[in-house]
């Protein structure tokens, strides 16, 4: 008390309204029906839940762990059951929803095992910090910054002063006052622990002179302290906002926290008295932060006072406990009247930073008067505790000239509201500064993000350039080698020796033949394994594996069929090799489609297309139809006929596929010089016949090339190589079909069902891929105005 005190610029003297809530002692915690515990009750990263819904938790059990350095754990305030982990509205000015853990108390108050560190003087600093961090302690003064982070300033900073902030300058709030009156010992013990961690040369407790009882209680507690000489309680003049960290530091030490800096930069660490009690409990009793003292005040509640609140207690329960008069209640504010925010709902929970719940009547705290023009009176500048120019900041924020606001040190504003309080024009100045700060923060964030994106883009560009250069270098090297070889060859030719080149060609030829033989062998093997169609079918039905394997089996069987024709096996397997996964599926589909052209196909097809997974199928079919349409542009007349012939069909997608098939078949038939295209009759039988026709055509070696070239063209239009392979494979299959005569339609019928009923994801994805590709092709062939195209669209 003998220390000379300083002061800060400005400040205001609003009515204190503190007496009402200091008449009764702190009430013990009440147990509500449910506790809502937001995972984010602090500044920094959201905590990570450790429990699952339905689990029983014990009082003090950690239910969410800190993530990263600047974060705080959450603990169960009582024993009970976790009923939900879901987004709930936060007690935050934004009114946003975030993940919350909902606990239904069981009333047993059963504690979990606590691990106190009674001999904290012998414990390493790191262990203490970890213990405090595990206890989930954040600053209880209002901002909610994780305490363990604040207690661990950078090593190169020499902390000479520890300040306990007991000023509690905001009107109405008496939580710290009552805490000091009743629990001064715990405050001093917390101070001891913090001082042990930080090792300052002096400890100051700054307290406004409107709390003489608290000062006395603290003095008494200090008398028995071993740090009696270092601790000083300093009673400071009551002035808002002397409890602001920077302002209190200035009052007590006359040092100013630099622009953009923290108190630790000038060797000072400042903690709230409530935080000191929380630290004391965490170390000496092992209790995590599960409750806090909150002032419930305002004229709308009959009883005003302080209560120990379990974190997560809904405000409604507290107001009911303090006998709220609903007809009088106008606004519920969390925090004080100067810096608090109005709550939209009373269902919101009390969190670690909730020091006051203010339930006011309309008369007590009227709605803000309408904003009027700034009259440049300068009262705001006189009141500003941070010696800023509120008026200038107001203009800049309003006109969105944020760079100018920044140059007027907007970021040093502590949003205390003194300027708004004194403004004769009722301008909500602080709201303007908050808005401007938010915008500046976002702009800053966007700038870093765009710099980062540019960096990544440039890195990628460099990488691509490098790859290109490497490729070019390789190509050049190969060209050089080739040139050298050519030269050598030329030289050799000059010598009349052609032999080495011939030998090379022979080797290549031999390799090709070997490959072919191997393929043929494979096909033959496949035939052996899936010899009888019946066995094949049962195998398929057994399958619950993804559709892909079904496709592969289909492929194998096709290969087997093809193997019946030894002459053609090479071509078929070559086609397979080229097509790969995609076309393999297509082949399987084609097979199914083919089987559905059996006499009873119409009956089968309709339910199939009604199934949800049939969506993908129809897309595939559309794709096929499109491809076929492109391929058969030269046979436009025939396709028109086919289109008109199938218009009566009810199942659109299927009919399109069939149309396409018919068309292709017709094209093939036409090419082979046969005019057997009765598409205008029954399209189904037409396909059958056309297939047979095509198969015949293929069987004749002389005519074999014609349909192949035709389909090749179609493949080119669709920009897809594997298609031609597919076509060839189809031809092959058709050939096999004709060989096994009518048996084909009979055997393939049961195969259809299991295949169609498998709504496997990869299949539909592939279908969609194909559909998309087909659509692209369609846009390319926009001029194709056949009836076919119109109908498909």
């Amino acid at each position, binding site marked *: 008390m003998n220390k000379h005190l300083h002061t800060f610029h400005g400040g205001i003297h609003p009515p204190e309204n503190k007496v009402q809530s200091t008449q009764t002692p702190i009430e013990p915690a009440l147990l509500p029906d449910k506790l809502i515990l937001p995972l984010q009750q602090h500044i920094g990263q959201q905590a990570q839940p450790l429990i699952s819904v339905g689990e029983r938790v014990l009082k003090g059990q950690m239910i969410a762990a800190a993530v990263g350095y600047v974060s705080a754990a959450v603990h169960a305030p009582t024993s009970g059951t976790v009923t939900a982990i879901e987004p709930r509205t936060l007690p935050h000015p934004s009114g946003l929803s975030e993940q919350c853990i909902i606990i239904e108390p069981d009333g047993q108050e059963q504690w979990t095992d606590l691990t106190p560190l009674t001999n904290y003087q012998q414990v390493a600093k790191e262990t203490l910090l970890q213990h405090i961090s595990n206890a989930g302690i954040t600053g209880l003064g209002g901002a909610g910054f994780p305490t363990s982070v604040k207690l661990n300033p950078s090593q190169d900073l020499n902390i000479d002063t520890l300040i306990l902030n007991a000023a509690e300058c905001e009107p109405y709030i008496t939580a710290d006052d009552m805490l000091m009156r009743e629990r001064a010992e715990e405050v001093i013990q917390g101070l001891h622990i913090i001082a042990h961690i930080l090792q300052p040369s002096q400890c100051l407790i700054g307290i406004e002179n409107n709390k003489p009882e608290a000062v006395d209680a603290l003095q008494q507690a200090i008398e028995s302290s071993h740090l009696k000489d270092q601790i000083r309680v300093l009673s400071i003049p009551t002035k808002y906002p002397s409890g602001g960290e920077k302002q209190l530091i200035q009052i007590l030490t006359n040092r100013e926290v630099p622009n953009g800096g923290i108190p630790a930069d000038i060797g000072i660490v400042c903690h709230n008295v409530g935080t000191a009690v929380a630290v004391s409990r965490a170390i000496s009793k092992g209790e995590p932060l599960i409750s806090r003292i909150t002032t419930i005040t305002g004229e709308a509640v009959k009883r005003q006072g302080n209560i120990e609140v379990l974190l997560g207690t809904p405000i409604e329960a507290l107001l009911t406990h303090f006998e709220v008069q609903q007809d009088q209640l106008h606004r519920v504010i969390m925090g004080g009247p100067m810096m608090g925010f109005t709550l939209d709902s009373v269902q919101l929970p009390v969190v670690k930073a909730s020091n006051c719940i203010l339930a006011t009547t309309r008369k007590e705290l009227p709605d803000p008067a309408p*904003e009027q023009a700034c009259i440049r009176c300068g009262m705001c500048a006189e009141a500003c505790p941070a010696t800023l120019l509120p008026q200038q900041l107001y203009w800049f924020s309003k006109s969105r000239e944020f760079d100018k606001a920044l140059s007027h040190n907007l970021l040093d504003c502590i949003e205390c509201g003194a300027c708004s309080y004194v403004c004769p024009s009722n301008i909500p100045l602080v709201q303007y500064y908050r*808005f401007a700060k938010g915008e500046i923060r976002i702009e800053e964030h966007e700038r870093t*993000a765009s710099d980062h*994106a540019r960096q990544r883009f440039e890195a990628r560009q460099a990488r691509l350039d490098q790859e290109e250069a490497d490729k070019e270098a390789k190509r050049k090297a190969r060209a050089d080698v080739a040139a050298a070889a050519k030269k050598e060859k030329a030289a050799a030719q000059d010598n009349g020796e052609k032999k080495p080149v011939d030998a090379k060609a022979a080797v290549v030829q031999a390799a090709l033949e070997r490959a072919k033989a191997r393929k043929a062998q494979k096909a033959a093997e496949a035939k052996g394994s899936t010899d009888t169609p019946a066995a094949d079918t049962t195998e398929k039905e057994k399958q619950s594996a993804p559709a892909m394997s079904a496709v592969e089996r289909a492929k194998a069987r096709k290969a087997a069929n093809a193997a019946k024709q030894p002459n053609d096996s090479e071509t078929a397997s070559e086609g397979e090799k080229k097509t790969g996964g995609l076309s393999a599926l297509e082949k399987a589909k084609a097979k199914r489609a083919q089987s559905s052209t059996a006499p009873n196909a119409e009956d089968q097809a309709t339910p199939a297309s009604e199934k949800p997974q049939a969506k993908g199928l129809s897309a595939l079919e559309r794709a096929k139809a499109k491809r076929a349409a492109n391929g058969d542009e030269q046979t436009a007349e025939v396709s028109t006929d086919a289109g008109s012939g199938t218009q009566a069909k009810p199942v659109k997608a299927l009919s399109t596929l069939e149309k396409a098939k018919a068309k292709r078949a017709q094209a093939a038939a036409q090419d082979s010089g046969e005019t057997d295209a009765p598409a205008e009759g029954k399209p189904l039988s037409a396909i059958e016949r056309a297939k047979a026709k095509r198969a015949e055509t293929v069987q004749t070696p002389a005519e074999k090339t014609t349909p192949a070239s035709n389909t090749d063209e179609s493949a080119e239009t669709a920009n897809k190589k594997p298609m031609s392979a597919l076509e060839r494979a189809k031809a092959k299959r058709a050939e096999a079909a004709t060989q096994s005569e009518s048996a084909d339609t009979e055997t393939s019928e049961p195969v259809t069902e299991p295949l169609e009923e498998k709504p496997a994801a990869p299949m539909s994805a592939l279908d969609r891929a194909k559909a998309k590709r087909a659509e692209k092709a369609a846009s390319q062939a926009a001029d194709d105005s056949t009836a076919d195209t119109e109908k498909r669209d």
Partner: protein
Amino acid sequence: MSIITAILILLVLAAIFGVILGFAAIYFKVDEDPVVDQIDNLLPQTQCGQCSYPGCRPYAEAIANGDEINKCPPGGESTIHALAELLGRDFVALDEEHGEEKGKRVALIREAECIGCTKCIQACPVDAILGAAKQMHTVIADECTGCDLCIEPCPVDCIDMVPVQTTANDWRWDSPDSSIDSANNQLIATDRIDPAAETGA
């Protein structure tokens, strides 16, 4: 005679200052930030190509060569304002031809539907998509600039652009809706702000 002396003195002075200025021009040359870099710094770096240039830097170069400043939908109005201020040009509304200004969005791959074709990976200008052939791909949301370039190549249309949700951490206060923004509501005549001047500012 005195005239010749005067001329001589002036000539000598001119020569001396000429030499000084010449050396100063070389030794004190300021490597000024080229205007292209300054423009590039203002662009949002989504690399989306909506401006019809292949990336932000080419557009910055085009602007430096006299192209319009209103072709960047991701940057939106604030970017146009910043460019107008930097280049001393007038503010022009965003050219609708190049798209509209949407909020910040990021790509999201519906992973069950991804077939692992790697096409989106190749399209991504900032390498924000992770995956390998025939393996599921995923977007690193923090790196995604929301350029839309991965949407088109996807063969199965499994990429969505989802708006970035505001969380309590990046939430910001709205501007107070001040009733005196309308000029009629001014209480003191001398404080009346010309609406035209207000919007121009």
